[in-house]
């Protein structure tokens, strides 16, 4: 069961500003989702001994050779930033 305090906590960690009404809505939606997934527990006997998985596809991680190749000019990437100084990315004050 997810309560309003938990929603507010997670929103804070994710740097999301939620209005009181939104906290209410999300708490309800999240609980609905949990209840939906909860149905899997009805399969409990069949799931006995089945390892949790994070993926639907079998096989190991693909890897690439350790060879340098820069396709994009870093200068172009710096120009995508909201603010830059020389070749640094410039960000607002971190702590007050």
């Amino acid at each position, binding site marked *: 069961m997810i309560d309003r305090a938990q929603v507010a906590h997670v929103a804070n960690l994710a740097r999301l500003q939620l209005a009181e009404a939104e906290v209410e809505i999300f708490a309800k939606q999240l609980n609905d989702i949990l209840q939906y997934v909860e149905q899997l527990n009805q399969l409990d006997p069949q799931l006995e001994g089945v390892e949790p998985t994070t993926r639907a596809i079998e096989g190991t991680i693909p890897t690439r050779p350790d060879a340098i190749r820069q396709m994009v000019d870093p200068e172009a990437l710096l120009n995508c930033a909201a603010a830059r100084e020389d070749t640094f990315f410039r960000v607002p*004050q971190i702590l007050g």
Partner: protein
Amino acid sequence: MRENYEAVIGLEIHCQLATATKIFCNCPNTFGAHPNANVCPVCLGMPGVLPVLNAKALEYAIKAALALNCTIAPLSKFDRKQYFYPDLPKNYQISQYDLPLATNGWLTIYTEEGREKRIGITRLHMEEDAGKLVHAGSDRLAGSSYSLVDYNRAGVPLCEIVSEPDMRSGAEAAAYAQELRRILRYLGVCDGNMQEGSLRCDVNVSVRPKGSSKLGTKVEIKNMNSFNAIQRAIDYEIDRQVAAIEAGERIVQETRLWEENSQRTITMRVKEGSSDYRYFPEPDLPPIVLTAAQIEAYRSALPELPRQKRQRYQLEYGLNAYEANLIADDRSVAEFFEAVVATGAEPKPAFNWIMGDITAYLNENKLKITEIPLTPAALGEMLQLIADQTISTKIAKDLLPELLSQPLAGTVKDLVAAKGLKVMTGAELEAIVTEVINSHPKEVEQYRAGKTKLLGFFVGQVMKRTQGKAEPQTTNDLIKAKLEN
């Protein structure tokens, strides 16, 4: 009062893997590049990019784990560790959480009492490094009006190696970190440069009354960039905690920074919400699946490790523990030593020459043993010439600078002949001895009257006239025979 307490110390070490490129993109992994020269859409976390694991980074991490006696997980995976900080372009770090690459390892240190002690390794996992912040307007975070970020380091492959809380003093912790670095360098997977941050240590320290099995409140210390600093920071922190407990204070669980200038630890501001990283499996990277055969192939490709070399040098070469530790410290030095011994040279003189004159020359000229013209074969030949008394030790010492700095055209024997440095014995030497004795009648008289200490004077005179080429034992015998007849 410190004797009544016991410290419990664990280390978390981050080491940058010495790959050519970053862990999930093709950007160069180089230290000291121009700010943001080594960046691309992947390591800057631009939308729609796909991270692809660097095969070399995986290989290096597996090698490190095996050398640290870890069990490699047949299945491990990457997770996203989420927090907001500008050094992290994606707002999450790709790391490994509940299924790390390897667990349950150990390494061996030597305590101050000279005993072997096994330090447990809880886990080893792979992750990406974060970028670097430069705080404008102040050297401290708090006073900055804005910050500048360099993402060259973002995405550099890291291994995080977490120890068990098995260490009891600053010296033991420093010995652990040193042995860990030695192993990583033997493998060639990390350069171990602490000044440049390729090897970074975080330390957890708590104290408890001796005999108690309950752990005290743990304090984390960061910011030590030498083994010496690790040792001093821990010893300072143990004293601080003991004094606080004795004064009836409570130890606060916190992160403290080691201040090199003032030689103390200070409280660091704790990152807000840092304990709640909301890890979840990285959807862009499938799990790492390794078969037993693959793991065994990596294991069989491991080089001989420092501890094995130290043991073998004592058993096979008759070095003592101190000497074995010293020469096994650096792999290239150890391999040079072994190659010299393989030419048939006695291990002890080989050790003495390498750790003495040769090391002094290397230090003086900031060179590695692999960067000098002297080959193990040439040193082996020189040691043979000393052993069969073709040249004296003194001549060898005079010869060495040339062997160290210039490529040898032929053999050492050729060089000795060309320079006329061959040891002098036989009739030639006898003639000079006679000459010396004849030109010092006063000293001869004193010697014969019982002042036998003058033997050294005559030997010195012979050495002077032969420019050190006289074979010492024969010289001694000849002088004695002539004076005592």
